[in-house]
């Protein structure tokens, strides 16, 4: 009786669907994309490089910690206060067979790497290394590790894990993730999401063992391939900087795949407040083969020719210029906000130097 009444109620509610939906799927897509690609990237603002601190922690963490120590890192060098987004000093020293770096990224508060068999694979290793003071462990025994930048991320601690280079470490997880969190330097925390096998305890146990080994052999500050950009921006306002970047390994270098510009204080604006500054551009630059389907093609509404290249300019929820093939690259420039400082048209026409597909011509200076 009651069951049937409850069923009837639910059916009635579901049947009252109003035609107009407030769900903005494009916004959800953008936010999801931002969170995925930039979840470990910081709110855009001009990064201040603390080169000395980075070097210090690199040396300190790169060296073996005293054996047998499993407590908090209370002595030794501090973790960097901020990261240099153009210097990816983080790399994997060991990975399970078949895995390799597929993507990385940086912002001033966070550097991250993803290793897998291929990009967007089901099982991957997602490493996040946070700047000093970004994360705080709470509870006794430890219950949560809360990292406040770039967005609030609460890591729920399940229990102690084997020490990582002698430093305290914890297993953590959510309903569909498992991770290892550890203190990599004084006042600095790292987390690595490992492959999740909910129905295979043996595989999960092996992944845990591998996670400790991966974490123990992460290299901080050791030489990595250079981060290079296949386009260069010129004649921009002097305060504009690359505020966050994602990159992919490509022909022996780390090629910037997406990046945002920032200037001044962060603006938690149009896209969920993760990275983009309203009115400033962000870029996706990749070979056409990077995309499963071209993000745009000639002949679409908004098509025009700029500098001899076909482009498609749209302005639905953001102003966007997409050049499907410009010197062998697919270039997408996007800007949120009603009044961008420089329009996407002008950026492409006057401020963008296309460097082609030969890595030898790419630059480590994205703003010339």
């Amino acid at each position, binding site marked *: 009786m009651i069951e049937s009444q409850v069923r009837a109620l*639910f059916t009635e509610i*579901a049947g*009252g669907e109003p035609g107009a*939906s407030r*769900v903005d799927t494009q916004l959800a897509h953008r936010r999801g994309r931002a969170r995925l690609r930039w*979840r470990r990237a910081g709110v855009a603002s001009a990064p201040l490089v603390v080169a000395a601190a980075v070097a210090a922690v690199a040396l300190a963490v790169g060296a073996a910690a005293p054996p047998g120590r499993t407590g908090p890192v209370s002595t030794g060098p501090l973790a960097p206060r901020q990261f240099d987004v153009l210097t990816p000093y983080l790399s994997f020293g060991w990975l399970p067979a078949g895995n390799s770096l597929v993507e990385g990224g940086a912002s001033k508060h966070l550097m991250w790497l993803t290793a897998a068999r291929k990009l967007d694979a089901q099982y991957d290793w997602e490493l996040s290394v946070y700047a000093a003071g970004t994360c705080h462990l709470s509870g006794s025994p430890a219950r949560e590790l809360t990292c406040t930048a770039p967005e609030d991320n609460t890591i729920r601690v399940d229990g102690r894990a084997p020490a990582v280079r002698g430093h305290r470490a914890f297993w953590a*997880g959510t309903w*569909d993730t498992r991770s290892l969190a550890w203190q990599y330097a004084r006042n600095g925390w790292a987390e690595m999401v490992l492959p999740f096998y909910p129905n295979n305890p043996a595989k999960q146990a092996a992944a845990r063992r591998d996670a400790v080994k991966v974490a123990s052999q992460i290299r901080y500050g050791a030489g990595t391939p250079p981060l290079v950009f296949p386009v260069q921006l010129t004649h921009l306002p002097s305060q504009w900087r690359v505020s966050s970047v994602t990159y992919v390994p490509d022909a022996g270098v780390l090629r910037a795949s997406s990046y945002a510009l920032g200037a001044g204080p962060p603006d938690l604006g149009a896209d969920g407040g993760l990275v983009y500054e309203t009115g400033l551009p962000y870029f996706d630059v990749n070979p056409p083969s990077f995309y*499963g389907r071209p993000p745009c093609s000639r002949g679409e509404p908004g098509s025009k020719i700029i500098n001899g290249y076909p482009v498609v300019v749209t302005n639905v929820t953001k102003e966007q210029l997409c050049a499907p093939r410009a010197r062998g690259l697919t270039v997408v420039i996007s800007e949120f906000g009603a009044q961008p400082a420089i329009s996407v048209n002008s950026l492409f026409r006057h401020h963008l130097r296309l460097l082609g597909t030969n890595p030898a011509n790419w630059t480590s200076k994205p703003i010339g």
Partner: protein
Amino acid sequence: MWRPAMSGSRDDEYTEYVAARLSSLRRLAAVLCDDWQRADDLVQAALVKLYVHWGRVRAASHTDAYARAVLVREFIHERRSTWVKRVTLKGRVTDAPAATVDHDAVLDVRAAVAALPARQRATLVLRFYCDLNVDQAAEVLGCSPGTVKSQTARALGAVRRALGPAAGDGPGGQPATRVASHTGEGAPGHD
């Protein structure tokens, strides 16, 4: 069952899936929230998570089940973290109505179900709207089948008590003194 196009990129597949399933996700959200505006907010939040986890979603054998789990867990999480703190739910029933009061039956049920804790409501929705069996509901909620059974029994008991003797179809027909609290939920971990 929705299946991603083999040649599609992550974004294409996601866009295709959302376009195909938005309406059903909204309906499920509405049944969970009993409020279409709130339902849209819930779907909005769930779609972001769905994109973030799309690598797992596309690999899952039951895409719709995964999406449903994201939505339901987001609902429980939201209710736990914000609504309960900020919102006094309309229609909350704290005492069973007197037997002589002639309420509209549907409104009574609606008020009684609205008074349930989020997890109990979600359990009822999964069982009696989505028509999941106990094991399937347990998987969505991230708990044991036994917990689903007990949550279902508690929820139905609370509704029955809230409806009073008029709904008397068993032991639950006795007048109740209080419907389950909104707080004190033990939802699973949620990112």
